């Protein structure tokens, strides 16, 4: 593999450039007209403009991306996360053009991209799933029958949804009938697929996900869990590893389930199995993300394993260099997503020029960001401008370090979520490891003064 095209932007594109550099692989950045000054575009070995500022006119243009891959003679494409990363058609097009898609096959993406099929697939290999429908639900009557069987409250989920989209909750027959119809038409409009399934709604779960790696030789390992329960409207704000809730026994059982699910998906590459965990420690398969995730750095700092390099090495056909028993959890790591948003104004996006930028550093601090002094954040894409990761020998050290690093971080000219992150990190319930997915809603009812 001599040259890789990076079909993404922002911090993950920079991350991929770095991994390729270390592996001696040349990089080609494809970018929109709004990203000419982006850091990874400047650092990549080659760069090709693929369209206008709108994602639909650039980063989602599979045809232009593959065209760029051909004229620049690349061997592989790394899709990052978002955009085309979980687009099975794109993976298929790469394969038919003889370009290696760094990720799983189109079939695996399709299988796990449909929530109903994914659930059936993992259920067959003994992975616990939420009680609910057996596949999709066609009629209101069926919905009511299922809800009566598993008990209210229930969740109506679009099979083509993901990332928190296409979810509705019903607490009784009347609201179920109403929400069922609405959910179907919403899903049709948003995803082009109106199919829904019904699941028992678990109240105040923890969102705990497992990182997996699968090579082309049948080896699958998990690299432990990440606790991503701090979410606002299903968007993760803070992630940590290991989870304060998971003990060795639960980790072993969930890890085995994650590996079984990954094998059932006939998977290749890096992936994540998401679970919901109830207060009693029962865990249920939520979905599989067939891509590298935003929060991958916390697993990297805990285990010492470079996940992007692993993706590339797996794509090159190399077997995994380590066995499950050799995976160690040496540190505790926390990540805060830094978004260009104003938490004091309902998270209004805050694009514009960063006229002063100073990132924190020191022992146990990692910054994954494409921002720099003078960088103008374009308004066309998501608001995440970077990730701040801290790690230490204990969770307490990681938390103290995060507070120190957040305090040191200087980003002037735009609003960021840094003040909110500091407030969450300082919260007693968060520090006690008690946060579930209900935390943020509670927290925002009485947000403390943010400095």
């Amino acid at each position: 593999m001599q040259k890789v095209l990076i079909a993404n932007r922002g911090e993950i594109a920079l991350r991929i450039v770095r991994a390729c550099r270390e592996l001696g692989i040349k990089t080609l950045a494809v970018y929109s007209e709004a990203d000419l000054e982006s850091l990874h575009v400047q650092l990549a070995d080659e760069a090709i403009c693929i369209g206008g500022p709108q994602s639909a006119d650039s980063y989602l243009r599979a045809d232009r991306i593959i065209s760029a891959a051909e004229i620049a003679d690349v061997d592989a494409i790394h899709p990052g996360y978002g955009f085309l990363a979980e687009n099975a058609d794109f993976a298929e097009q790469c394969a038919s053009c003889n370009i290696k898609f760094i990720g799983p096959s189109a079939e695996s993406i399709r299988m796990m991209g449909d929530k109903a099929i994914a659930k059936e697939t993992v259920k067959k290999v003994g992975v616990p799933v939420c009680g609910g429908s057996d596949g999709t639900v066609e009629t209101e009557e069926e919905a009511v029958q299922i809800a009566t069987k598993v008990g209210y409250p229930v969740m109506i989920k679009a099979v083509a949804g993901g990332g928190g989209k296409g979810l509705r909750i019903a607490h009784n027959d009347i609201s179920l009938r109403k929400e069922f119809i609405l959910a179907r038409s919403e899903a049709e409009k948003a995803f082009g697929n109106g199919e829904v399934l019904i699941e028992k709604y678990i109240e105040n779960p923890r969102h705990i996900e497992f990182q997996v790696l699968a090579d082309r030789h049948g080896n699958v390992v998990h690299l432990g869990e990440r606790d991503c329960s701090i979410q606002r409207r299903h968007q993760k704000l803070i992630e940590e590893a290991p989870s304060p809730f998971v003990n060795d026994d639960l980790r072993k059982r969930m890890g085995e389930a994650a590996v079984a699910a990954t094998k059932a998906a006939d998977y290749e590459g890096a992936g994540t199995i998401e679970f919901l965990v109830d207060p009693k420690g029962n865990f249920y398969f939520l979905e599989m993300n067939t891509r590298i995730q935003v929060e991958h750095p916390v697993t990297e700092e805990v285990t010492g394993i470079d996940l992007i390099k692993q993706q590339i090495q797996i794509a090159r056909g190399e077997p995994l260099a380590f066995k499950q028993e050799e995976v160690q959890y040496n540190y505790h790591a926390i990540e805060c997503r830094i978004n260009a948003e104003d938490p004091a104004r309902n998270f209004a996006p805050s694009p514009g020029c960063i006229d002063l930028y100073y990132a924190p550093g020191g022992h146990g601090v990692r910054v994954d960001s494409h921002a720099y002094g003078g960088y103008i954040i374009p308004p066309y894409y998501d608001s995440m401008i970077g990730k701040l990761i801290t790690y230490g020998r204990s969770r307490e050290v990681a938390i103290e370090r995060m507070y120190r690093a957040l305090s040191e971080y200087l980003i002037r000219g735009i609003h960021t979520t840094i003040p909110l992150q500091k407030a969450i990190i300082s919260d007693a319930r968060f520090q006690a490891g008690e946060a579930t997915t209900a935390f943020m809603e509670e927290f925002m009812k009485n947000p403390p003064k943010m400095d």
Partner: protein
Amino acid sequence: MKKSDLSEFEVEEENFKLKIKRDTGKEAPPQIISSAPPPAAAPSVPAAQPVSTAAESGEAEADNATYITSPMVGTYYSSPSPESDAYVKSGDTVSNDTIVCIIEAMKIMNEIQAEQSGAIAETLVENGQPVEYGQKLFRLA
């Protein structure tokens, strides 16, 4: 910094300059001046080499000119086949649907229309050259 006698502190690395000056007269917080020059200037890092060089030559001119730019990523061909004449040459007048070139993308030959009217002043790309989205192909007089 308050505890030390340092009133000025400077760090310079290849991509990044940081200068902290403590104003010894007042109790103001240190002025942190971070000027990160555009990373393309970094010496040890090869600057991005866009496949096109036409973009750079275009910027050198006083840009009141109009251009026909590429609507796609691919390979530019000036004529319908190696044996034929070029679609257009300097001096030719074009209108909206005049075909000015072919851009081949993924084995498909796309006929590119001018989508504006004017006279071709200069052809900015060479036959067989890879072009990116937005790349200037022709300058119009």
